């Protein structure tokens, strides 16, 4: 499904991703863990095509299609979805209007019929209930005044409605209490159908208790330094990252 080879990416001429390789097959769940500043968020932005995140070398394909040659929105329509670590607030644009526009755009780009408004309203209500948000959130501005947990759940709601092939979850667990974490994890698990693949980016093992990964990778200094099964996450939880040669206790927070 997703194939990344020797990916190199820079932000403001600082190389952050330095030869990243990863292959994810249909239905697989891969977790990427790593210390602050390892390049986890940069990886997700480079793959989705965010401005100022320049891919300088390497390839990334989704089902054989060259992701890097596509516009941001084309990558989305090709089936790539990023659940943001910090979802953006957009006052004045209602969640419902936004969701319908996004689903319509992707369906028309895939050559599918558009849902009628009433059909879509039903789907949106169902998704809203599934992530345990009140229906009034559909009318509110996109993420406007939502709590951290509500924003994360809104991301999962979008994922449910957009039906992507590959979901990148960028620290979808950060800032969540245990109940919210369960709701988010359940939402994600409900989308595991043996075909859809996931790339779960997280600092902590905690999320992986709820979303069982097939593979765990450690990202440090812009590349994968260790890969293994679910047990690797447990080791990391126990030992931390201090075994990494490049580990720097004072590493700047990678938050943008």
């Amino acid at each position: 499904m997703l194939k990344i080879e020797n990916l190199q990416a820079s932000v403001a001429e600082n190389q952050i991703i330095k030869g990243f390789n990863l292959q994810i097959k249909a239905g697989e769940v891969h977790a990427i863990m790593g210390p602050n500043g390892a390049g986890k968020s940069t990886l997700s932005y480079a793959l989705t095509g965010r401005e100022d995140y320049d891919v300088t070398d390497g390839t990334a394909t989704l089902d054989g299609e060259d992701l890097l040659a596509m516009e941001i929105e084309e990558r989305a329509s090709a089936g790539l979805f990023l659940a943001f670590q910090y979802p953006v607030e957009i006052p004045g644009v209602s969640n419902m209007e936004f969701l319908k526009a996004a689903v319509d755009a992707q369906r028309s780009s895939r050559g599918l019929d558009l849902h009628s408004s009433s059909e879509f309203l039903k789907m949106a209500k169902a998704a809203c209930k599934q992530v345990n948000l009140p229906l009034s959130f559909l009318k509110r501005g996109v993420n406007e005044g939502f709590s951290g947990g509500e924003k994360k759940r809104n991301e999962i709601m979008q994922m449910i409605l957009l039906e992507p092939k590959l979901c990148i979850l960028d620290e979808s667990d950060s800032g969540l209490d245990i109940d919210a974490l369960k709701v988010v994890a359940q939402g994600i698990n409900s989308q595991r159908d043996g075909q859809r693949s996931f790339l779960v980016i997280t600092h902590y093992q905690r999320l992986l208790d709820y979303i069982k990964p097939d593979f765990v990778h450690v990202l440090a200094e812009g590349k994968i330094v260790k890969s293994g099964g679910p047990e690797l996450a447990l080791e990391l939880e126990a030992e931390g990252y201090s075994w990494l040669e490049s580990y720097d206790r004072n590493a700047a927070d990678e938050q943008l």
Partner: protein
Amino acid sequence: MSQWLNQALAQANDINDWLAPKRRQSLALLKETPWPSRKTEAWKYTPINKIERAKFATRTASQTKAVEIPNLAAIELCFVDGMFDTTNSSNSLPKGLSVLQLSEGGQTNWALDSFKQTKPDKHFFGLMNDALATQGCIIDIEDSSEIVEPIRIVQSFSLGSQSHTRIMVRLGEASRATVVEHLHGNDLSFNTSFAEYQIADNAYLEHYRLAMQCQDAISVGGCHFKLGHSSQLNSNLIGFGSQLSRVDVDIIHAGEHSDAKFNVIYLLDGREIFDLHSAIEHTVPNGTSEQNVRCIVADHANAIFNGRIHIHRDAQKILAEMNNRNLLMSDDAQVNTKPELEIYADDVRCAHGATMAEIDEKSMYYLQSRGINRSDAQVMLSFGFINELIDLMQNQAIGDWLRPILRQRFANMEIR
């Protein structure tokens, strides 16, 4: 002095009606007021020479028809090039509401005193309007009456027309009403349209001025409000620019505990100009005012906002807020914003802010990452910026009517 002005003054001298004493005062002032130029601060950005250059015709039978607002169910008062249009106007009025043509004002005991009461004399074209406006209407709402249907005053302007209209509205004590001033035209025309509102104690006015004329229109006008004790004004101004659009809004807090909200949306494209001057006069203590002015400027357009808040001596415990946000969609678009705060009381809270921003790239990326292309995302974001103010409108029919019109206008605003 301009030839156009001389003609206008000569014409004004010949008007001899019930307003003649007031007109003479304004004429006298006009003769002392120099024709505004770019060096006149209040007219710095208003290209008045366009009035002189434009070719106006004498009025011919007009094809201009009023635009309908679905589901508004309004009491309609229609004017075409300033002339009252009986056929398209409502002929039955609810209890508590009376409407006279401006020419019939001599029949009332209050109109003469009220004329020029609320509108300040500072405005050159306001004075012209005092002298020349023979058309318009006088609306009176009885004490304690609630007029449920909105009163819509539609002014349509046809090609080459020149007109000067005056609307006078009096809301009696504890009365409630919605007034919609709708100005519209598809061709070159010149109009001055001023409205004066007296809002008595405990009364509530919901007000809309929809200045949606075409690019060729030359339109100068204003809305002037005087607020009594514990009265409330909720005013909305929605404007498209034109080669010359100038609106002055004065809100005078004459009674304590009065509250005024003034929300403005204007969208400019091409080489349009929209020049808005607002003045909030807090003359007495314990009042509140809130202004939100939002503007989107594309292409070579120029948006001007001059916002004045004047808190008089001893007008303590005032809360006054003014917020101006602008969205620039091209490198050649211009915004000129100037707050003017004059505060002579020491126990007040007065806040103002002006921001100039281009489309937020983080929001843009977010929408694109969901599959929405850049130009559609642009429309959504621009629309969201002003939709917040539409959401605040009390009258849902107007909001529902406006949304697609404004959305369409954005869609046509190209990024350059």
